[in-house]
Protein backbone atom coordinates (compact mmCIF):
# COMPACT_ATOMS: atom_id res chain seq x y z
CA UNK A 1 0.00 0.00 0.00
CA UNK A 2 1.40 3.39 -0.86
CA UNK A 3 1.67 6.15 1.68
CA UNK A 4 -0.86 8.24 -0.17
CA UNK A 5 -3.52 5.58 -0.17
CA UNK A 6 -2.94 5.05 3.48
CA UNK A 7 -3.29 8.78 4.06
CA UNK A 8 -6.62 8.85 2.28
CA UNK A 9 -7.83 5.83 4.17
CA UNK A 10 -6.97 7.30 7.56
CA UNK A 11 -8.51 10.64 6.58
CA UNK A 12 -11.71 8.82 5.72
CA UNK A 13 -11.60 6.98 9.01
CA UNK A 14 -11.12 10.22 10.87
CA UNK A 15 -14.06 11.73 9.06
CA UNK A 16 -16.20 8.77 10.02
CA UNK A 17 -15.23 9.26 13.64
CA UNK A 18 -16.01 12.95 13.51
CA UNK A 19 -19.41 12.22 12.05
CA UNK A 20 -20.07 9.68 14.76
CA UNK A 21 -18.95 12.20 17.37
CA UNK A 22 -21.28 14.82 15.93
CA UNK A 23 -24.16 12.33 15.99
CA UNK A 24 -23.86 12.02 19.77
CA UNK A 25 -25.52 14.75 21.79
CA UNK A 26 -22.55 14.84 24.18
CA UNK A 27 -20.04 15.08 21.36
CA UNK A 28 -21.97 17.75 19.56
CA UNK A 29 -22.38 19.88 22.66
CA UNK A 30 -18.69 19.45 23.48
CA UNK A 31 -17.54 20.36 19.98
CA UNK A 32 -19.74 23.44 19.86
CA UNK A 33 -18.67 24.73 23.27
CA UNK A 34 -14.99 24.13 22.60
CA UNK A 35 -15.26 25.83 19.21
CA UNK A 36 -17.08 28.82 20.69
CA UNK A 37 -14.52 29.27 23.46
CA UNK A 38 -11.62 28.95 21.03
CA UNK A 39 -13.18 31.45 18.61
CA UNK A 40 -13.93 33.84 21.46
CA UNK A 41 -10.29 33.69 22.49
CA UNK A 42 -9.23 34.41 18.91
CA UNK A 43 -11.73 37.23 18.60
CA UNK A 44 -10.48 38.83 21.80
CA UNK A 45 -7.10 39.35 20.16
CA UNK A 46 -8.72 41.80 17.74
CA UNK A 47 -11.89 43.02 19.30
CA UNK A 48 -13.79 43.25 22.56
CA UNK A 49 -16.91 45.40 23.02
CA UNK A 50 -14.97 47.66 25.40
CA UNK A 51 -11.37 47.78 26.52
CA UNK A 52 -11.40 45.18 29.33
CA UNK A 53 -8.82 47.13 31.30
CA UNK A 54 -10.57 50.47 30.90
CA UNK A 55 -11.51 51.93 34.28
CA UNK A 56 -14.52 54.23 34.30
CA UNK A 57 -15.51 55.34 37.78
CA UNK A 58 -18.76 56.93 36.57
CA UNK A 59 -19.86 53.61 35.16
CA UNK A 60 -19.40 51.50 38.33
CA UNK A 61 -21.78 48.60 38.92
CA UNK A 62 -24.03 49.26 35.97
CA UNK A 63 -26.67 46.53 35.81
CA UNK A 64 -26.78 44.31 32.71
CA UNK A 65 -28.21 46.30 29.79
CA UNK A 66 -27.14 48.34 26.82
CA UNK A 67 -24.27 48.92 26.00
CA UNK A 68 -22.78 46.90 28.89
CA UNK A 69 -24.60 43.65 28.21
CA UNK A 70 -23.41 41.96 31.42
CA UNK A 71 -22.97 45.16 33.43
CA UNK A 72 -19.79 46.62 34.90
CA UNK A 73 -17.66 45.89 37.96
CA UNK A 74 -16.41 47.98 40.88
CA UNK A 75 -13.98 49.85 38.63
CA UNK A 76 -16.49 50.36 35.84
CA UNK A 77 -14.87 47.73 33.63
CA UNK A 78 -17.18 46.01 31.16
CA UNK A 79 -17.75 42.46 32.44
CA UNK A 80 -18.54 40.99 29.02
CA UNK A 81 -15.26 42.31 27.66
CA UNK A 82 -13.40 40.90 30.67
CA UNK A 83 -14.95 37.50 30.04
CA UNK A 84 -14.21 37.57 26.32
CA UNK A 85 -10.60 38.48 27.05
CA UNK A 86 -10.44 35.85 29.81
CA UNK A 87 -11.16 33.13 27.25
CA UNK A 88 -7.67 33.81 25.94
CA UNK A 89 -6.06 32.85 29.25
CA UNK A 90 -8.27 29.79 29.55
CA UNK A 91 -7.38 28.56 26.08
CA UNK A 92 -3.71 29.27 26.66
CA UNK A 93 -3.66 27.26 29.88
CA UNK A 94 -5.72 24.39 28.46
CA UNK A 95 -3.62 24.06 25.32
CA UNK A 96 -0.19 24.44 26.95
CA UNK A 97 -0.92 22.03 29.76
CA UNK A 98 -2.38 19.67 27.17
CA UNK A 99 0.86 19.78 25.22
CA UNK A 100 2.98 19.14 28.32
CA UNK A 101 0.68 16.34 29.46
CA UNK A 102 0.95 14.78 25.99
CA UNK A 103 4.72 14.81 25.95
CA UNK A 104 5.08 13.50 29.49
CA UNK A 105 2.25 11.01 29.08
CA UNK A 106 3.49 9.48 25.83
CA UNK A 107 7.06 9.37 27.09
CA UNK A 108 6.11 7.65 30.35
CA UNK A 109 3.69 5.29 28.62
CA UNK A 110 6.31 4.29 26.05
CA UNK A 111 8.93 3.82 28.78
CA UNK A 112 6.47 1.81 30.80
CA UNK A 113 5.33 -0.39 27.96
CA UNK A 114 8.10 -0.84 25.43
CA UNK A 115 11.34 -1.04 27.39
CA UNK A 116 13.15 -3.79 29.25
CA UNK A 117 11.16 -5.46 31.97
CA UNK A 118 12.94 -3.96 34.98
CA UNK A 119 12.63 -0.45 33.58
CA UNK A 120 9.01 -0.69 32.60
CA UNK A 121 8.01 -2.18 35.95
CA UNK A 122 9.86 0.59 37.80
CA UNK A 123 8.15 3.21 35.68
CA UNK A 124 4.79 1.60 36.34
CA UNK A 125 5.29 1.71 40.11
CA UNK A 126 6.53 5.28 39.90
CA UNK A 127 3.46 6.28 37.91
CA UNK A 128 1.25 4.59 40.51
CA UNK A 129 2.90 6.66 43.20
CA UNK A 130 2.95 9.96 41.36
CA UNK A 131 -0.72 9.68 40.57
CA UNK A 132 -1.51 10.13 44.25
CA UNK A 133 -0.09 13.66 44.24
CA UNK A 134 -3.00 16.06 43.99
CA UNK A 135 -2.37 18.56 41.18
CA UNK A 136 -3.20 21.54 43.35
CA UNK A 137 -0.58 20.56 45.91
CA UNK A 138 2.03 20.27 43.16
CA UNK A 139 0.99 23.74 42.05
CA UNK A 140 1.38 25.07 45.59
CA UNK A 141 4.85 23.56 45.76
CA UNK A 142 5.90 25.20 42.51
CA UNK A 143 4.31 28.48 43.56
CA UNK A 144 6.22 28.43 46.85
CA UNK A 145 9.44 28.48 44.87
CA UNK A 146 8.79 30.64 41.84
CA UNK A 147 5.77 32.59 43.03
CA UNK A 148 2.40 32.22 41.38
CA UNK A 149 2.02 32.47 37.61
CA UNK A 150 0.12 30.86 34.79
CA UNK A 151 3.18 28.72 34.13
CA UNK A 152 2.82 27.17 37.55
CA UNK A 153 -0.71 26.16 36.59
CA UNK A 154 0.37 24.88 33.19
CA UNK A 155 3.24 22.80 34.56
CA UNK A 156 1.43 21.32 37.50
CA UNK A 157 -1.60 20.28 35.44
CA UNK A 158 0.68 19.13 32.63
CA UNK A 159 2.72 16.91 34.96
CA UNK A 160 -0.31 15.65 36.86
CA UNK A 161 -2.18 14.71 33.74
CA UNK A 162 0.87 13.45 31.93
CA UNK A 163 1.14 10.88 34.69
CA UNK A 164 -2.50 9.92 34.51
CA UNK A 165 -2.45 9.73 30.71
CA UNK A 166 0.54 7.43 31.04
CA UNK A 167 -1.36 5.27 33.47
CA UNK A 168 -4.28 4.80 31.13
CA UNK A 169 -2.29 4.61 27.90
CA UNK A 170 0.35 2.16 29.11
CA UNK A 171 -1.87 -0.92 29.45
CA UNK A 172 -3.50 -0.02 26.16
CA UNK A 173 -0.09 0.14 24.53
CA UNK A 174 0.84 -3.23 26.03
CA UNK A 175 -2.42 -4.72 24.76
CA UNK A 176 -1.93 -3.44 21.23
CA UNK A 177 1.69 -4.56 21.31
CA UNK A 178 0.57 -8.18 21.43
CA UNK A 179 -2.05 -7.99 18.71
CA UNK A 180 -1.57 -9.86 15.47
CA UNK A 181 -1.20 -6.85 13.22
CA UNK A 182 1.70 -5.50 15.25
CA UNK A 183 3.37 -8.90 15.18
CA UNK A 184 2.70 -9.10 11.47
CA UNK A 185 4.24 -5.68 11.05
CA UNK A 186 7.31 -6.79 12.91
CA UNK A 187 7.50 -9.98 10.87
CA UNK A 188 7.28 -8.06 7.61
CA UNK A 189 10.33 -6.09 8.56
CA UNK A 190 9.06 -2.81 10.05
CA UNK A 191 11.49 -1.17 12.41
CA UNK A 192 10.21 -0.57 15.96
CA UNK A 193 9.85 3.14 15.20
CA UNK A 194 7.86 2.47 12.03
CA UNK A 195 5.70 -0.02 13.84
CA UNK A 196 5.11 2.50 16.63
CA UNK A 197 4.05 5.21 14.23
CA UNK A 198 2.00 3.08 11.89
CA UNK A 199 0.33 0.59 14.20
CA UNK A 200 0.75 1.44 17.85
CA UNK A 201 0.04 5.16 18.08
CA UNK A 202 -3.06 5.20 15.86
CA UNK A 203 -4.55 2.44 17.97
CA UNK A 204 -3.81 4.12 21.24
CA UNK A 205 -4.91 7.53 19.96
CA UNK A 206 -8.61 7.24 20.89
CA UNK A 207 -7.87 6.48 24.55
CA UNK A 208 -5.34 9.25 24.52
CA UNK A 209 -7.63 11.95 23.11
CA UNK A 210 -10.34 11.13 25.61
CA UNK A 211 -7.86 11.62 28.44
CA UNK A 212 -6.56 14.80 26.90
CA UNK A 213 -10.00 16.28 26.68
CA UNK A 214 -10.66 15.59 30.34
CA UNK A 215 -7.20 16.91 31.23
CA UNK A 216 -8.03 20.20 29.58
CA UNK A 217 -11.25 20.43 31.58
CA UNK A 218 -9.24 20.06 34.77
CA UNK A 219 -6.75 22.63 33.49
CA UNK A 220 -9.55 25.17 33.14
CA UNK A 221 -10.74 24.47 36.68
CA UNK A 222 -7.17 24.62 37.97
CA UNK A 223 -6.55 27.96 36.34
CA UNK A 224 -9.71 29.37 37.88
CA UNK A 225 -8.93 27.95 41.33
CA UNK A 226 -5.29 28.96 41.43
CA UNK A 227 -5.95 32.40 39.98
CA UNK A 228 -8.64 32.81 42.62
CA UNK A 229 -6.08 31.93 45.30
CA UNK A 230 -3.73 34.50 43.78
CA UNK A 231 -1.25 31.86 42.60
CA UNK A 232 -2.23 31.83 38.93
CA UNK A 233 -2.82 34.68 36.53
CA UNK A 234 -1.06 37.99 37.22
CA UNK A 235 -3.32 40.81 38.35
CA UNK A 236 -3.03 42.42 34.93
CA UNK A 237 -4.01 39.27 33.01
CA UNK A 238 -7.62 38.81 32.01
CA UNK A 239 -8.73 35.66 33.81
CA UNK A 240 -12.06 34.20 34.86
CA UNK A 241 -10.65 32.99 38.17
CA UNK A 242 -9.20 36.39 38.91
CA UNK A 243 -12.49 38.02 38.03
CA UNK A 244 -14.22 35.76 40.57
CA UNK A 245 -11.70 36.85 43.19
CA UNK A 246 -12.26 40.54 42.37
CA UNK A 247 -16.02 40.21 42.47
CA UNK A 248 -16.06 38.16 45.68
CA UNK A 249 -15.50 41.25 47.84
CA UNK A 250 -18.80 42.66 46.63
CA UNK A 251 -20.64 39.37 46.70
CA UNK A 252 -23.19 40.51 49.26
CA UNK A 253 -24.04 43.73 47.41
CA UNK A 254 -23.72 42.70 43.75
CA UNK A 255 -24.34 38.97 43.59
CA UNK A 256 -25.43 38.98 39.94
CA UNK A 257 -22.02 40.02 38.62
CA UNK A 258 -20.46 36.84 40.02
CA UNK A 259 -22.77 34.73 37.87
CA UNK A 260 -21.01 35.43 34.57
CA UNK A 261 -17.41 34.31 35.10
CA UNK A 262 -18.69 31.25 36.97
CA UNK A 263 -21.01 30.35 34.12
CA UNK A 264 -18.20 30.80 31.62
CA UNK A 265 -15.96 28.40 33.54
CA UNK A 266 -18.70 25.84 34.12
CA UNK A 267 -19.76 25.83 30.49
CA UNK A 268 -16.21 25.43 29.23
CA UNK A 269 -15.45 22.60 31.64
CA UNK A 270 -18.74 20.90 30.82
CA UNK A 271 -17.98 21.21 27.11
CA UNK A 272 -14.54 19.61 27.47
CA UNK A 273 -15.88 16.86 29.74
CA UNK A 274 -18.67 16.00 27.33
CA UNK A 275 -16.30 16.15 24.38
CA UNK A 276 -14.19 13.54 26.19
CA UNK A 277 -17.28 11.41 26.89
CA UNK A 278 -18.39 11.72 23.29
CA UNK A 279 -14.96 10.87 21.92
CA UNK A 280 -14.93 7.79 24.08
CA UNK A 281 -18.30 6.66 22.87
CA UNK A 282 -17.50 7.43 19.24
CA UNK A 283 -14.16 5.66 19.18
CA UNK A 284 -14.59 2.72 21.54
CA UNK A 285 -16.14 -0.12 19.53
CA UNK A 286 -17.23 -2.02 22.62
CA UNK A 287 -19.13 0.99 23.88
CA UNK A 288 -20.65 1.75 20.51
CA UNK A 289 -22.24 -1.67 20.33
CA UNK A 290 -24.10 -1.33 23.57
CA UNK A 291 -24.46 2.37 23.71
CA UNK A 292 -25.36 3.81 27.03
CA UNK A 293 -25.44 0.47 28.78
CA UNK A 294 -23.07 -0.05 31.65
CA UNK A 295 -20.89 2.77 30.61
CA UNK A 296 -18.10 2.29 33.05
CA UNK A 297 -16.94 5.26 35.00
CA UNK A 298 -13.86 7.21 34.17
CA UNK A 299 -10.75 5.31 34.93
CA UNK A 300 -9.01 8.09 36.64
CA UNK A 301 -9.41 11.76 37.18
CA UNK A 302 -6.73 13.60 39.08
CA UNK A 303 -8.06 15.22 42.14
CA UNK A 304 -8.58 18.78 41.24
CA UNK A 305 -11.81 20.46 41.91
CA UNK A 306 -10.60 23.95 42.40
Amino acid sequence: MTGRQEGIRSAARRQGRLRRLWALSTGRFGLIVVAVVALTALLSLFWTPFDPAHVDIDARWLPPGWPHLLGTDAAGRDILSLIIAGARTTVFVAVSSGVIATVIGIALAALGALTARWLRETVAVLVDILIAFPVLLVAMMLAAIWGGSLWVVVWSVGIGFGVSIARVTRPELRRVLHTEFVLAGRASGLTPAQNLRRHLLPNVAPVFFVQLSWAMAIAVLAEAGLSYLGLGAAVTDPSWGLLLKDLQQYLTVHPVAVLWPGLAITLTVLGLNLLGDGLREATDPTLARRRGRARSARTHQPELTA
Partner: protein
Amino acid sequence: MIRYALTRLVLLLVGLVVASALIFLTLRVLPGDVAQLIAGTNSTPQQIATYREQLGLDRPLPLQYLDWIGGLAHGDLGRSLLTGTPVVDELTQKAQVTLPLGIMSLVIALLVALPFGVLSAMWRGRGAGTGLSVGAQAVAAVPVVWAGMMLVVVFAVWLGWLPAQGFPRAGWQQPVLALRALILPALTIGVVEGATLMRFVRSATLQAVGEDYVRTAAAKGLTRTQALIRHGLPSVGLSVVTVLGLQVAGIVVGAVVVEQLFSLPGIGRMLVSDVFARDLPKVQGELLVLTGFVLIVGFAVDLVHRAIDPRQREAG
Protein backbone atom coordinates in the same frame (compact mmCIF):
# COMPACT_ATOMS: atom_id res chain seq x y z
CA MET B 1 -4.82 -11.29 52.18
CA ILE B 2 -1.79 -10.91 54.41
CA ARG B 3 0.50 -11.19 51.45
CA TYR B 4 -1.51 -8.56 49.63
CA ALA B 5 -1.46 -6.29 52.68
CA LEU B 6 2.30 -6.56 52.97
CA THR B 7 2.88 -5.83 49.28
CA ARG B 8 0.55 -2.87 49.53
CA LEU B 9 2.33 -1.68 52.66
CA VAL B 10 5.66 -1.77 50.86
CA LEU B 11 4.13 0.25 48.05
CA LEU B 12 2.83 2.77 50.59
CA LEU B 13 6.25 3.11 52.21
CA VAL B 14 7.94 3.53 48.83
CA GLY B 15 5.30 6.11 48.00
CA LEU B 16 5.94 8.04 51.21
CA VAL B 17 9.69 8.01 50.63
CA VAL B 18 9.32 9.15 47.02
CA ALA B 19 6.84 11.82 48.03
CA SER B 20 8.99 13.18 50.83
CA ALA B 21 12.13 13.10 48.68
CA LEU B 22 10.39 14.93 45.85
CA ILE B 23 9.00 17.59 48.17
CA PHE B 24 12.34 17.95 49.91
CA LEU B 25 14.35 18.18 46.72
CA THR B 26 12.01 20.56 44.96
CA LEU B 27 11.78 22.93 47.89
CA ARG B 28 15.40 22.65 49.02
CA VAL B 29 17.35 22.51 45.81
CA LEU B 30 15.43 24.61 43.37
CA PRO B 31 14.80 27.85 45.22
CA GLY B 32 18.45 28.67 45.72
CA ASP B 33 19.39 29.77 49.17
CA VAL B 34 16.88 29.62 52.01
CA ALA B 35 19.35 31.34 54.32
CA GLN B 36 19.61 34.24 51.89
CA LEU B 37 15.83 34.37 51.81
CA ILE B 38 15.51 34.67 55.59
CA ALA B 39 18.39 37.03 56.02
CA GLY B 40 16.92 39.40 53.47
CA THR B 41 18.52 41.46 50.77
CA ASN B 42 20.49 43.77 53.07
CA SER B 43 22.35 40.99 54.85
CA THR B 44 26.07 40.53 55.15
CA PRO B 45 27.73 37.27 54.09
CA GLN B 46 28.41 36.49 57.77
CA GLN B 47 24.74 36.77 58.65
CA ILE B 48 23.85 34.42 55.84
CA ALA B 49 26.52 31.98 56.95
CA THR B 50 25.17 32.05 60.52
CA TYR B 51 21.66 31.33 59.32
CA ARG B 52 22.94 28.57 57.12
CA GLU B 53 24.64 26.95 60.05
CA GLN B 54 21.62 27.36 62.31
CA LEU B 55 19.37 25.74 59.74
CA GLY B 56 21.85 22.98 59.04
CA LEU B 57 22.07 24.05 55.42
CA ASP B 58 25.86 23.74 55.37
CA ARG B 59 25.58 19.97 55.66
CA PRO B 60 25.30 17.59 52.71
CA LEU B 61 21.80 17.24 51.23
CA PRO B 62 21.25 13.55 52.02
CA LEU B 63 22.04 14.29 55.68
CA GLN B 64 19.62 17.20 55.69
CA TYR B 65 16.96 14.94 54.25
CA LEU B 66 17.61 12.27 56.87
CA ASP B 67 17.46 14.94 59.58
CA TRP B 68 14.08 16.02 58.35
CA ILE B 69 12.73 12.48 58.11
CA GLY B 70 14.32 11.55 61.43
CA GLY B 71 12.59 14.50 63.07
CA LEU B 72 9.36 13.29 61.59
CA ALA B 73 9.75 9.99 63.39
CA HIS B 74 9.34 11.73 66.75
CA GLY B 75 6.78 14.21 65.57
CA ASP B 76 9.02 17.10 64.64
CA LEU B 77 8.46 18.75 61.27
CA GLY B 78 10.74 21.70 61.84
CA ARG B 79 9.90 25.27 62.66
CA SER B 80 8.32 28.13 60.79
CA LEU B 81 10.81 30.58 59.33
CA LEU B 82 8.66 33.53 60.23
CA THR B 83 7.20 32.79 63.66
CA GLY B 84 9.57 30.10 64.91
CA THR B 85 6.67 27.97 66.15
CA PRO B 86 6.89 24.23 65.53
CA VAL B 87 5.08 23.23 62.36
CA VAL B 88 3.45 20.26 64.08
CA ASP B 89 1.77 22.49 66.68
CA GLU B 90 0.25 24.71 64.04
CA LEU B 91 -0.87 21.74 61.98
CA THR B 92 -2.66 20.07 64.90
CA GLN B 93 -4.34 23.32 65.80
CA LYS B 94 -5.53 24.00 62.24
CA ALA B 95 -6.60 20.39 61.78
CA GLN B 96 -9.38 21.11 64.28
CA VAL B 97 -11.07 23.01 61.49
CA THR B 98 -9.95 21.07 58.42
CA LEU B 99 -10.63 17.57 59.72
CA PRO B 100 -14.27 18.18 60.71
CA LEU B 101 -14.74 20.10 57.45
CA GLY B 102 -13.39 17.16 55.48
CA ILE B 103 -15.54 14.60 57.29
CA MET B 104 -18.68 16.70 56.88
CA SER B 105 -17.90 17.17 53.18
CA LEU B 106 -17.43 13.44 52.67
CA VAL B 107 -20.72 12.64 54.43
CA ILE B 108 -22.57 15.19 52.31
CA ALA B 109 -20.93 13.88 49.13
CA LEU B 110 -22.08 10.36 49.96
CA LEU B 111 -25.57 11.55 50.88
CA VAL B 112 -25.80 13.24 47.48
CA ALA B 113 -24.13 10.55 45.41
CA LEU B 114 -25.60 7.28 46.70
CA PRO B 115 -29.34 7.88 46.42
CA PHE B 116 -29.22 10.06 43.31
CA GLY B 117 -26.68 7.83 41.57
CA VAL B 118 -28.78 4.70 42.10
CA LEU B 119 -31.97 6.51 41.12
CA SER B 120 -30.50 7.95 37.95
CA ALA B 121 -29.40 4.44 36.95
CA MET B 122 -32.79 2.90 37.71
CA TRP B 123 -34.60 5.63 35.84
CA ARG B 124 -32.30 5.38 32.86
CA GLY B 125 -34.06 6.19 29.63
CA ARG B 126 -36.76 8.13 31.47
CA GLY B 127 -36.89 11.90 31.74
CA ALA B 128 -36.08 11.95 35.44
CA GLY B 129 -33.03 9.72 35.00
CA THR B 130 -31.66 11.80 32.17
CA GLY B 131 -32.33 14.93 34.19
CA LEU B 132 -30.35 13.59 37.12
CA SER B 133 -27.47 12.57 34.85
CA VAL B 134 -27.32 15.91 33.13
CA GLY B 135 -27.52 17.66 36.49
CA ALA B 136 -24.60 15.63 37.83
CA GLN B 137 -22.53 16.44 34.74
CA ALA B 138 -23.26 20.12 35.11
CA VAL B 139 -22.59 20.32 38.85
CA ALA B 140 -19.35 18.34 38.48
CA ALA B 141 -18.16 21.05 36.07
CA VAL B 142 -18.76 23.88 38.54
CA PRO B 143 -15.63 25.41 40.06
CA VAL B 144 -15.72 24.95 43.84
CA VAL B 145 -15.12 28.67 44.46
CA TRP B 146 -18.13 29.64 42.46
CA ALA B 147 -20.35 26.98 44.01
CA GLY B 148 -19.40 28.42 47.39
CA MET B 149 -20.22 31.96 46.30
CA MET B 150 -23.63 30.90 45.02
CA LEU B 151 -24.39 29.09 48.29
CA VAL B 152 -23.33 32.20 50.23
CA VAL B 153 -25.65 34.36 48.15
CA VAL B 154 -28.61 32.06 48.74
CA PHE B 155 -28.14 30.88 52.34
CA ALA B 156 -26.25 33.77 53.90
CA VAL B 157 -27.32 36.85 51.96
CA TRP B 158 -30.90 36.13 50.87
CA LEU B 159 -32.11 33.72 53.52
CA GLY B 160 -29.73 34.78 56.27
CA TRP B 161 -29.69 31.29 57.79
CA LEU B 162 -25.95 30.77 58.00
CA PRO B 163 -22.85 32.92 58.36
CA ALA B 164 -21.18 33.96 55.10
CA GLN B 165 -17.64 33.76 56.46
CA GLY B 166 -15.47 33.15 59.48
CA PHE B 167 -15.08 30.76 62.37
CA PRO B 168 -15.71 31.50 66.07
CA ARG B 169 -12.62 32.71 67.86
CA ALA B 170 -13.20 30.27 70.70
CA GLY B 171 -13.34 27.40 68.21
CA TRP B 172 -15.09 24.24 69.33
CA GLN B 173 -15.75 25.67 72.80
CA GLN B 174 -18.68 27.23 71.01
CA PRO B 175 -19.83 24.06 69.27
CA VAL B 176 -23.02 25.42 67.76
CA LEU B 177 -21.36 28.45 66.22
CA ALA B 178 -18.44 26.36 64.99
CA LEU B 179 -20.73 23.82 63.41
CA ARG B 180 -22.81 26.50 61.76
CA ALA B 181 -19.65 28.07 60.37
CA LEU B 182 -18.70 24.79 58.70
CA ILE B 183 -22.07 23.94 57.13
CA LEU B 184 -21.80 26.08 54.00
CA PRO B 185 -18.14 25.23 53.33
CA ALA B 186 -18.86 21.51 53.73
CA LEU B 187 -21.93 21.80 51.54
CA THR B 188 -19.82 23.49 48.85
CA ILE B 189 -17.26 20.69 48.70
CA GLY B 190 -19.81 17.97 49.33
CA VAL B 191 -22.15 18.90 46.52
CA VAL B 192 -19.45 19.30 43.86
CA GLU B 193 -17.61 16.14 44.95
CA GLY B 194 -20.91 14.35 45.32
CA ALA B 195 -21.80 15.12 41.71
CA THR B 196 -18.56 13.51 40.54
CA LEU B 197 -19.11 10.53 42.81
CA MET B 198 -22.69 10.20 41.63
CA ARG B 199 -21.51 9.31 38.14
CA PHE B 200 -19.44 6.46 39.55
CA VAL B 201 -22.43 5.23 41.53
CA ARG B 202 -24.62 5.44 38.45
CA SER B 203 -22.33 3.38 36.27
CA ALA B 204 -21.69 0.88 39.07
CA THR B 205 -25.44 0.45 39.46
CA LEU B 206 -25.92 0.00 35.73
CA GLN B 207 -23.25 -2.65 35.80
CA ALA B 208 -24.91 -4.39 38.74
CA VAL B 209 -28.28 -4.45 36.96
CA GLY B 210 -26.64 -6.34 34.13
CA GLU B 211 -25.03 -8.96 36.39
CA ASP B 212 -26.27 -12.52 36.13
CA TYR B 213 -27.06 -12.90 39.80
CA VAL B 214 -29.27 -9.83 39.79
CA ARG B 215 -31.07 -11.06 36.70
CA THR B 216 -31.49 -14.50 38.26
CA ALA B 217 -32.95 -12.96 41.39
CA ALA B 218 -35.39 -11.01 39.24
CA ALA B 219 -36.28 -14.16 37.33
CA LYS B 220 -37.02 -15.93 40.60
CA GLY B 221 -39.80 -13.51 41.30
CA LEU B 222 -38.30 -10.41 42.85
CA THR B 223 -39.14 -7.13 41.17
CA ARG B 224 -36.26 -5.44 39.42
CA THR B 225 -35.96 -2.92 42.24
CA GLN B 226 -35.98 -5.59 44.94
CA ALA B 227 -33.38 -7.63 43.08
CA LEU B 228 -31.18 -4.60 42.68
CA ILE B 229 -31.48 -3.52 46.30
CA ARG B 230 -30.92 -6.97 47.76
CA HIS B 231 -28.28 -8.33 45.41
CA GLY B 232 -26.91 -5.44 43.40
CA LEU B 233 -26.28 -2.76 46.00
CA PRO B 234 -23.44 -4.54 47.82
CA SER B 235 -21.37 -4.48 44.65
CA VAL B 236 -22.27 -0.83 44.12
CA GLY B 237 -21.03 -0.14 47.63
CA LEU B 238 -17.76 -1.85 46.83
CA SER B 239 -17.08 0.22 43.77
CA VAL B 240 -17.83 3.35 45.78
CA VAL B 241 -15.17 2.26 48.27
CA THR B 242 -12.60 2.01 45.48
CA VAL B 243 -13.06 5.61 44.42
CA LEU B 244 -13.22 6.91 47.99
CA GLY B 245 -9.48 7.51 47.95
CA LEU B 246 -9.88 9.84 44.99
CA GLN B 247 -12.72 11.58 46.74
CA VAL B 248 -10.62 12.23 49.82
CA ALA B 249 -7.91 13.76 47.66
CA GLY B 250 -10.57 15.91 46.02
CA ILE B 251 -11.79 17.03 49.43
CA VAL B 252 -8.29 17.96 50.60
CA VAL B 253 -7.88 20.11 47.52
CA GLY B 254 -11.38 21.52 47.85
CA ALA B 255 -10.64 22.48 51.44
CA VAL B 256 -7.69 24.63 50.34
CA VAL B 257 -9.97 26.73 48.15
CA VAL B 258 -13.02 26.72 50.39
CA GLU B 259 -11.11 27.73 53.52
CA GLN B 260 -9.87 30.73 51.61
CA LEU B 261 -13.35 31.60 50.40
CA PHE B 262 -14.93 31.28 53.84
CA SER B 263 -11.93 32.63 55.82
CA LEU B 264 -11.67 29.45 57.89
CA PRO B 265 -8.51 29.05 59.98
CA GLY B 266 -7.65 25.61 58.60
CA ILE B 267 -4.65 23.85 57.10
CA GLY B 268 -5.52 24.84 53.53
CA ARG B 269 -5.64 28.54 54.27
CA MET B 270 -2.44 28.32 56.27
CA LEU B 271 -0.75 26.59 53.35
CA VAL B 272 -1.81 29.33 50.94
CA SER B 273 -0.53 32.09 53.18
CA ASP B 274 2.74 30.22 53.81
CA VAL B 275 3.22 29.83 50.07
CA PHE B 276 2.81 33.58 49.72
CA ALA B 277 5.21 34.22 52.59
CA ARG B 278 7.72 31.72 51.13
CA ASP B 279 7.92 30.02 54.51
CA LEU B 280 9.57 27.02 52.88
CA PRO B 281 10.22 24.75 55.89
CA LYS B 282 6.57 25.11 56.84
CA VAL B 283 5.30 24.56 53.30
CA GLN B 284 7.52 21.49 53.16
CA GLY B 285 5.96 20.06 56.33
CA GLU B 286 2.41 20.89 55.30
CA LEU B 287 2.78 19.37 51.85
CA LEU B 288 4.25 16.20 53.33
CA VAL B 289 1.40 15.85 55.80
CA LEU B 290 -1.26 16.42 53.14
CA THR B 291 0.21 14.10 50.50
CA GLY B 292 1.05 11.55 53.19
CA PHE B 293 -2.56 11.70 54.32
CA VAL B 294 -3.81 11.11 50.78
CA LEU B 295 -1.40 8.18 50.32
CA ILE B 296 -2.37 6.58 53.63
CA VAL B 297 -6.08 6.93 52.91
CA GLY B 298 -5.49 5.26 49.54
CA PHE B 299 -3.71 2.42 51.31
CA ALA B 300 -6.50 2.00 53.85
CA VAL B 301 -9.15 2.09 51.13
CA ASP B 302 -7.38 -0.64 49.17
CA LEU B 303 -7.09 -2.85 52.24
CA VAL B 304 -10.73 -2.37 53.19
CA HIS B 305 -11.82 -3.08 49.65
CA ARG B 306 -9.75 -6.24 49.55
CA ALA B 307 -11.11 -7.37 52.89
CA ILE B 308 -14.79 -6.90 52.15
CA ASP B 309 -14.95 -7.94 48.51
CA PRO B 310 -15.45 -11.71 48.38
CA ARG B 311 -14.39 -11.88 44.73
CA GLN B 312 -11.03 -10.33 45.60
CA ARG B 313 -10.61 -12.51 48.66
CA GLU B 314 -10.78 -15.66 46.58
CA ALA B 315 -8.17 -14.30 44.24
CA GLY B 316 -5.84 -14.51 47.26
